[in-house]
């Protein structure tokens, strides 16, 4: 068990012609559940393979606790602990089950390599198999399993071990919705119990939000923002982060900051909103300019005296709430109406929660409000 520290790590698959990861800096605390989140192809698996020692960066260092695992500078390898000596457990995106071994043998393979006592191995495998509901499959071979079963075996194989670090690369990708929720819950529970530092790769923001202690949101080989799920959701530092987290997606408007009678107002074609006092200071420099205003669907409330007129386009019931698609000016916007009754009127008045406005600079896409 150890913290993972990555310093100035760059990775290139073509000897430095282009970089998949560019000067990545990151610390994963001891015992933390850290999620690498980002769109497909942003370099999540690459970063994880570097931590595992399956891939050498062209630059940078990786420490587990105080121990130096990888040190490369300018393409020259100075220190490198091979993967088999790093004491990690990993689930690959492609499962990588050994086809010549039964499920039980697959799960016990690493422990047998470490020469753990036989009874101990069997006990752990049985417990874990039960927890993942694969105990009836222990004598089968991988070829005789469905995709979801294979994925659970791959997960179980990692979880029976007692490693320094867990590395999980999209381990729930092939499970159906119900099973995914169940395994997600089990996985988080097991991780909390064992307290083993975990890196979890996913492109699914729901998984990240529900499981992570620490989210690292990546795009094109760069970290866009990191922090707790709450920090990222409530204080996204740029439009990309705001848009990536939360379903349905955040609504974005282009509004002009104008000064009317000494007070600041956000003006759009079809509505204008007063600027809340907390935001006056930071919006002052933007007077007369456009900014992007982000409001999450759940922060748009349907009220009698709302300032934003909207025409209802369609309504999706969610059971305990409704997603109301409305037209504001030219734009279609989603409102999450947390009532069992759908709004009856065809035209509504909306008022945003003034404490939950997200403002972004249109040119840099960076957050304006503190």
């Amino acid at each position: 068990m150890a913290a993972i520290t990555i310093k100035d790590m760059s990775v290139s698959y073509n000897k430095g012609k282009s970089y998949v990861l560019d000067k990545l800096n990151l610390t994963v605390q001891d015992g933390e559940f850290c999620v690498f989140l980002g769109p497909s192809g942003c370099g999540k698996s690459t970063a994880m393979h570097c931590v595992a020692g399956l891939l050498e960066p062209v630059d940078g260092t990786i420490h587990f606790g105080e121990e130096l695992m990888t040190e490369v500078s300018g393409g020259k390898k100075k220190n490198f602990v091979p993967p088999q000596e790093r004491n990690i457990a990993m689930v690959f995106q492609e499962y990588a089950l050994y086809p010549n071994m039964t499920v039980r043998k697959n799960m016990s393979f690493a422990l047998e390599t470490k020469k753990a006592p036989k009874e101990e191995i069997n006990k752990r495998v049985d417990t874990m198999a039960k927890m993942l509901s694969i105990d009836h499959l222990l004598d089968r071979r991988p070829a005789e399993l469905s995709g979801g079963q294979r994925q659970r075996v791959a997960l179980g194989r990692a979880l029976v071990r007692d490693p320094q670090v867990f590395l999980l690369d999209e381990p729930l990708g092939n499970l159906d919705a119900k099973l995914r929720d169940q395994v997600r819950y089990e996985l988080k529970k097991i991780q909390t119990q064992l307290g083993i530092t975990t890196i979890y790769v996913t492109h699914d923001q729901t998984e990240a939000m529900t499981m992570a202690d620490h989210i690292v949101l990546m795009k094109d080989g760069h970290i866009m923002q990191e922090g707790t799920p709450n920090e990222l959701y409530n204080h996204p530092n740029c439009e990309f982060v705001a848009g990536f987290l939360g379903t349905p997606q955040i609504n974005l408007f282009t509004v002009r900051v104008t000064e009317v009678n000494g007070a600041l107002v956000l003006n759009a074609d079809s509505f204008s909103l007063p600027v809340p006092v907390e935001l006056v200071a930071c919006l002052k420099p933007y007077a007369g300019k456009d900014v992007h205003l982000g409001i999450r669907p759940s922060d748009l409330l349907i009220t009698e005296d709302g300032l934003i007129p909207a025409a209802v386009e369609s309504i999706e019931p969610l059971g305990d709430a409704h997603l109301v698609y409305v037209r504001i000016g030219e734009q279609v916007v989603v409102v999450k109406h947390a009532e069992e009754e759908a709004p009856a009127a065809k035209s509504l008045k909306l008022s945003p929660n003034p404490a939950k406005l997200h403002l972004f600079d249109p040119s840099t896409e960076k957050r304006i409000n503190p």
Partner: protein
Amino acid sequence: MQNHVGIERSREAQQAQTVKIRPRWHMTVLHIVYYFIMVAFLVFYMLPFWGTVMTSFKTNSEVMTSTPITPPTEWTLEGYASAMEELGMPLMTSLVVTIFGAAGSVFLGSVCAYALSKWRFKLNNVFFIALVAATYLPFQAILIPLLQTINALNLYDNVWGLVLVHSVFGMPMCTVMMRGYYADVPDALIRQAMIDGNGMWAIYRKIVLPNTMIATITTFVFQCTSIWNEMLFALVLGGYDSKPATIALNELAGTMAAEFNVQMAGSLILALPVLVLYIFMGKYLISGQMSGAVTAS
């Protein structure tokens, strides 16, 4: 709707085509010619074999008085008995050389193929190209220095000399054959085995070999056949005491010019092990067993 019409039309077009083909007189003639050629080849290939089998079961006097293709009036094993007298020792020699030579070359080839397909090192490709080139090497080109080397090692006229030579010279071919199979073992499996605490050789033993048994068996059978049938090294390096069966059979033909029944029996004895090997190993050479390793998609 449109689709339906399309299907109808194509069916019509198909029918039109078959109708067009059938009455062409020259197609029928062509068929007859094909069959004639095939039968001719069949006879051409099978007749000597038939003659060999028939002759091997005749007495020496009957060989003189009958054509090779008529069945014997009196079936006898006397040809086989005489042949075994001459071929007994050489067959043992061949057996030892074949089994150990094939095992040696398959082992060396397997290790090379594993390193070449799964581990990146400098000059990886150069090494592979050199190996491929080596499979095209004409052995007569290196025969004299080879003989001198074997002499210097004091392995002339010695089974182990032949085993050594076959192991080494069979290795490039085995490497090329097995590299293809090993490349099909997913890299994710190798990585997973590393994560599970295994080094390069443990992975070879526990993961790569068990999952490519077919490659090993196929290559082994192939090597057995070519070593069993080999004559050049056998002639030059075998000497007198450890001459393999191919050479002994050749001498059988030379020294007993008239005893065709013995010669034919000897030929069949020599051919038998290879036939048996193919019949029994055949089932291993058919199906794959790599399924279920990685994402099914």
